[in-house]
């Protein structure tokens, strides 16, 4: 049972709509494409409507209009001017039109790249270095990880002349890579089955009322 919906009339209606759309989507497995296409349109329409409502109620009104009316914060006016430039981009000169886009892309790249370096790259590198106080098991695990990584990297050497030893090592690396991916795909298979069984549970339990 998903437990999202209550017992009111709106909840019952929502359950029926969700159940019918679930059946339509599952019908796509049997080759019924036309109704499946309609369900995709329904999803796109609902998502667009939801995004519009979210933008108005949680962004534009509380974070732009209300602070502007209350405090007249100048930085919000700058932001509004940038939004105006972005909206009028098709009719504006190119150097002016690319201005808001450049700021947006630059800011996103700066935050994402800075975070990746400070939050992922450096701590992960530091975590991989063998320290003086590390246990023998930790050192062994690190050495093993380095060995496996080297073999996997070797497996990507295509077209490079190599002897029997290097060829065997590259082959081992390729099989290690396949084994690792296989293990992860096994986890994913279980995960996807959980999702499918959840949908079946929704149809039987939430919609048809078959008790668990």
């Amino acid at each position, binding site marked *: *049972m*998903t*437990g*999202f919906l*209550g017992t009111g009339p709106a909840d019952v209606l929502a359950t029926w709509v969700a159940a019918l759309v679930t059946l339509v989507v*599952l019908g796509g*497995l*049997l*080759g019924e494409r036309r109704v499946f296409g309609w369900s995709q349109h329904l999803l796109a329409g609902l998502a667009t409507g*939801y*995004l519009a409502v*979210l933008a108005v109620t*949680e*962004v534009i009104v509380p*974070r732009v209009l209300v602070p502007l009316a209350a405090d007249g914060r100048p930085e919000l006016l700058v932001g509004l001017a940038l939004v105006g430039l972005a909206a009028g981009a098709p009719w504006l000169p190119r150097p002016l039109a690319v201005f808001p886009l450049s700021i947006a892309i630059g*800011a*996103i790249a700066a*935050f*994402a790249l800075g*975070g*990746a370096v*400070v*939050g*992922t790259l450096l*701590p*992960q590198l*530091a*975590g991989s270095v063998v320290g003086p106080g590390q246990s023998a098991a930790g050192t062994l695990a690190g050495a093993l990880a380095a060995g496996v990584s080297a073999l996997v990297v070797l497996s990507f050497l295509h077209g490079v002349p190599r002897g029997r030893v290097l060829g065997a090592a590259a082959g081992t690396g390729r099989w290690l890579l396949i084994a690792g991916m296989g293990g*992860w795909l096994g*986890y*994913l*298979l*279980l*995960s996807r*089955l*959980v*999702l*499918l*069984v*959840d*949908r*079946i*549970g929704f*149809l*039987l339990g939430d919609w048809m009322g*078959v008790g*668990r």
Partner: protein
Amino acid sequence: MSDRARLVDRFAPLVLLLALAAAWALPEQGWLTLAAPDPDARARVTTALDALPAESLVVVGFDPDLGTYAEIRPTVRALIDDLLARGARLGFVSLTPEGRALALAEMDRLARGGGGAVVDLGFVPGAEAALVMLARGDRDGILEDGLATADAAVVIGGNDLGPRTWVEQVAPRVEDLPLIAVAPTILLPQLQPYLATGQLQALLGTPRDGAAYRDGLGRPAADHAGPMTLPILLGLLAALGVLGDGLAQRVMRGVQASRTRDAA
């Protein structure tokens, strides 16, 4: 392909769905469970929660993905109920529209069940920049001074802005904020290294981890019920059957090609 094989191919998904539905409708089998034999994941979460002070403030970064949320839903609900039972105050915040929709649904469910100390911190637009602002504090209310006022952050992942983003943007700016993550299996390879380095204090990243954590709570509730195990076993057997069929066909093709070569 013969007509019969085409018919089998067309109706095989329907037969599988009906078989899974029949397995779902059967009573739960006591001998078939999803519990993990390795209790480490559960122990890490419990240790992190035990370390929280009384009446702690826990920020719940709620950004799961609509497609994969069903996988982690029982675990998320069990964790939220566990935190509320420990007397924690929860502040729900979302950085993605999808996460916001699911957060509203979960808060609505909590309110129907009597609620608890839950505060809606809303949707914060701006992706990574929004998280930085949240960490530094630009909002009125319980996070006025930023995430440093929180005792821990529980990040429900699945979307683009999940545990990895919190590790990258929040952890360097807010020292000593324990990060606990619940994420679907697809994010496991991405998040496991953070657990190894201690950047994530705890991670429930597979259905097995979730089942082990829920079993350890000892408070079975309808909302915490995990997936039925019998249909999952049936699905796994069907997948193995398809895999075996593919392998057998490949071997047969090899044998036939070898015979043709020998005959020539």
